[in-house]
């Protein structure tokens, strides 16, 4: 390709960040300073260079993690290294909310303002206090800047914040060139140890502050490396230690940092059984178990795997969708932090069954502890022959690479995830073709959510029949629920399908008078506080006119201002729309505008009653019409569900009535 790169040069630090990921540039064609005579004789940068396009996102992370933002020079250098047109790379970099194309302080504090945190008691005071201490959002002050963030997946400890300081020794140093096991990230501490002594520069650090106070957020903004260690993942599991648990059995029991502890607690039994059954046997078991996807779409996992396995085109890929960003959802984070080896084992089984030798784990960019635990777990598994050329001595080769998202909810949509991973903008593709036929890199791909994959372990350990006996006829197995909001014991709960909403909320202990429950997150729907007999199954929620979605159960008491929550949901979809299709790109904006007008009318006692009522009715009619078009005509699930929660609040809860 004959590309034009411009004259901007990277700083030494930016160059080092990219070279740590990709290795030194082999020729002047790829950005080396010294031009050799060889370089003048032949051009480099054909297919080989272009085939590394998928390293664009890790490269952007590398620069952003080291320097805090991405300059023209850094982007140009990265483009030269990977033979990517600068305009396209700019389009990719500006797609993600964690990247900045303008200079900003090294420390960026993401303060969650999403539904669970906005519904937490004292949320207003907390945000005002943060603003008092750190200045207005987006304004650099004393080497730090804060910005409001969509849900950080820490809802059981709301309100939450995440402080990230750019510097050396960042996790993205773990590139394919560097070898994923030698990334200088410590397995324990709250911040990774610097891989090299940082001359003059501070080390990369990420600190999760939850539950957050404004003082703690300020302290984390000043010195993220000194932030207190996060509470153990087991604390997010109120049932921890219960012998009946299938998916959460090891959390709080086994040491998430130790492969031996994992094996001592039943780890790798399922993989052994898989090898005994053979790929066809695994496919049969998973199909017979009735397992369906837990990410929200509830597609039968066995059918997906079978369809992938039977494709003549090769290679096949396994992709774990760990880009958990549905507001109110945190189950995958708890699984990955509390039992990381379980995900490694189940991805290996998925690879074995579908004929894949490579798995990609696309992890949400805002999950620093999950990244540490999984990186460490993969390294241990590799060292012990549980990943690599000969898994368990069975002659089957499989390895896993972690790729980090960079702040885009839409990348949880599987085809957007593939585009993101391939180094393109995270825009969904139109289906058909489906991923089982043309997925990642255009090859047959089985893409599964974390919880779905982890369910494969009990399927194989218990056998399909025993697994299918759990739950109801149409929704089999155990299910994780993310309970937060107005409850005494927020956290992840594991219940067999068929338990009612009331059963679940009894376990968590409702506080105050329950006004509404948000099921399934921002893309889900509200039910009333008196609809506690809704069975928590796919068919039961559908019958009740709502959805299970990703398993969010957010309880709201009457102190929570509903119009504000609805506005936050609308803001979320407007922010997170990729912009590809018109109904979602503009419809989400019009939805937010209408909700602003409605909220203003609720807030201000009107002097002209009938006019206000007419205006309200008109706005609700407008919302319905736009919502219907978003649902019918958007490309992907984001636009199709962007109106669900608002609709249910109007119809079920009588919002704005």
């Amino acid at each position, binding site marked *: *390709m*004959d*590309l*034009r790169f*411009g004259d901007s040069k990277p700083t030494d630090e930016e160059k080092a960040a990219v070279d740590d990921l990709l290795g030194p540039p082999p020729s002047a064609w790829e950005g080396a300073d010294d031009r050799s005579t060889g370089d003048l004789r032949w051009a480099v940068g054909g297919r080989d260079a272009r085939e590394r396009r998928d390293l664009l996102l890790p490269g952007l992370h590398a620069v952003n993690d080291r320097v805090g933002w991405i300059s*023209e020079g850094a*982007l140009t250098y990265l483009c030269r290294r990977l033979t990517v*047109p*600068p*305009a*396209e*790379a*700019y*389009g990719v970099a*500006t*797609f993600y*909310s964690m990247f900045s*194309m303008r200079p900003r302080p090294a420390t960026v504090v993401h303060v969650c303002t999403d539904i669970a945190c906005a519904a937490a008691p004292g949320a207003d005071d907390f945000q005002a206090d943060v603003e008092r201490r750190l200045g207005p959002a987006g304004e650099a002050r004393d080497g730090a800047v804060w910005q409001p963030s969509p849900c950080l997946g820490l809802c059981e400890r709301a309100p939450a914040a995440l402080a990230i300081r750019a510097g050396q020794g960042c996790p993205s140093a773990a590139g394919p060139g560097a070898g994923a096991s030698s990334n200088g990230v410590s397995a324990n501490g709250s911040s990774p140890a610097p891989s090299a002594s940082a001359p003059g520069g501070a080390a990369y650090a990420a600190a999760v502050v939850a539950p957050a106070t404004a003082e703690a957020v300020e302290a984390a903004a000043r010195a993220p490396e000194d932030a207190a260690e996060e509470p153990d993942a087991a604390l997010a599991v109120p049932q921890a230690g219960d012998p009946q648990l299938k998916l959460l059995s090891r959390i709080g029991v086994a040491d998430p940092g130790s492969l031996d502890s994992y094996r001592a607690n039943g780890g790798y039994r399922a993989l052994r059984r898989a090898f005994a059954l053979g790929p066809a046997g695994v496919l049969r078991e998973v199909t017979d178990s009735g397992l369906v996807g837990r990410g929200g779409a509830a597609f039968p996992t066995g059918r997906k795997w079978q369809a992938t396995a039977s494709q003549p085109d090769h290679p096949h890929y396994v992709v774990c969708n760990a880009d958990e960003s549905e507001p109110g959802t945190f189950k995958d984070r708890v699984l990955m932090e509390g039992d990381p080896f379980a995900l490694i084992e189940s991805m290996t089984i998925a690879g074995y069954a579908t004929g894949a030798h490579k798995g990609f784990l696309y992890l949400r960019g805002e999950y620093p502890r999950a990244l540490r635990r999984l990186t460490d777990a993969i390294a241990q598994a590799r060292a012990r022959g549980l990943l690599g050329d000969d898994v368990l001595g069975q002659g089957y080769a499989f390895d896993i690479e972690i790729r980090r998202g960079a702040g*885009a909810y839409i990348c949880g949509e599987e085809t957007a995830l593939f585009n993101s991973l391939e180094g393109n*903008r995270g825009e969904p593709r*139109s289906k058909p073709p489906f991923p089982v036929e043309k997925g990642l890199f255009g090859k047959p791909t089985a893409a599964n959510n974390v919880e779905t994959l982890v369910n494969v372990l009990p399927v194989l350990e218990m056998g399909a029949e025993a697994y299918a006996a759990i739950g109801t006829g149409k929704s089999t197995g155990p299910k994780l629920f993310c309970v937060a909001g107005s409850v005494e014991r927020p956290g992840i709960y594991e219940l067999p399908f068929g338990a009612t909403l009331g059963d679940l909320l009894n376990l968590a202990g409702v506080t105050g008078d329950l006004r509404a429950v948000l099921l399934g997150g921002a893309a889900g729907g509200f039910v009333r506080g008196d609809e506690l007999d809704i069975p928590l199954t796919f068919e039961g929620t559908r019958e009740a006119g709502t959805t299970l979605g990703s398993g969010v159960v957010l309880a709201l008491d009457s102190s929570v201002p509903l119009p504000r929550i609805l506005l936050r949901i609308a803001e979320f979809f*407007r*922010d*997170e*729309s*990729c*912009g*590809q*299709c*018109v*109904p979602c*790109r*503009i*419809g*989400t*904006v*019009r939805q937010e*505008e209408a909700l602003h*007008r409605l909220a203003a009318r609720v807030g201000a006692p009107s002097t002209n009653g009938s006019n206000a009522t007419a205006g309200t009715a008109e706005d609700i009619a*407008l919302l319905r*019409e*736009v919502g*219907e*078009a978003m*649902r*019918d*005509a*958007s*490309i992907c699930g984001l636009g*199709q569900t962007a109106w669900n929660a608002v609709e249910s609040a109007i119809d079920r809860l009588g919002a704005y009535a």
Partner: protein
Amino acid sequence: MTAVPLDPPRRLVEFTLDGEPARVAEGATILDACRAAGKDIPTLCQGETLEPKNACRACVVEVEGARTLAPACSRKAEPGMTVSTDTERARHSRKIVLELLASATDLSTTPRAAEWIKEYGAKPDRFGADAATMNEQPKIDNDLYVRDYDKCILCYKCVDACGEQWQNSFAISVAGRGFDARISTEHDAPLTDSACVYCGNCIEVCPTGALSFKSEFDMREAGTWDEDRQTETTTVCAYCGVGCNLTLHVQDNEIVKVSSPLDNPVTHGNLCIKGRFGYQHVGGGNTAGA
């Protein structure tokens, strides 16, 4: 006339279109079938010479059994499928798409937009005076063409034409996200600092007039642009031996724009800077030496 190699015969797909049996070649889209049957489906982002991007969603139709509507421009006809183009549901989505687009974007130079807005009863001003718009000023950073993103519907056609589908210059991409997404060069630099080669193939595919010849832009500003007074003459470009067809748009004996027939087997509507913009010597009157 060049010999056009014939493809092997394709099988026919039979399906039901608005209650009537329809037959199209395998691989044809629902839109192809609609056009063959003389049905007028609104399209904006669809282009004869480009892969369907199905971004605008103006062409959605109802496919029986599907949860959502399907874009006619990209969904291939499948044997036995039942497609309805004129249901209440499909018309509603098209109406809303037109309302949303017209409320955020200047569609004044989009061919047929006004006609469709009327046909579907769309009311773009219902979103109120405060409704967010693209809110862009024309970018005039070179002598050849103008980018007026206030008129841009983000159909991606210019990006695809500039990129790997035709020109392989990769001067522009979509930057930003959601409602803030814009067609942009790297770092939003002026075109003169970008990889642009001024082939103007993006103008050729732009469905809204957001990209236009500087000559057209200036004449529209001056109020002198009048397509009714223009003639179109298709000729062969004299600059090199490739033999590209040029269509010269002439108003008052001056060339005001150059395009190329989309169905021309040499160009498929694409030209280079010389064919597209190198016409100033023809009139003579405006050149420095005259």
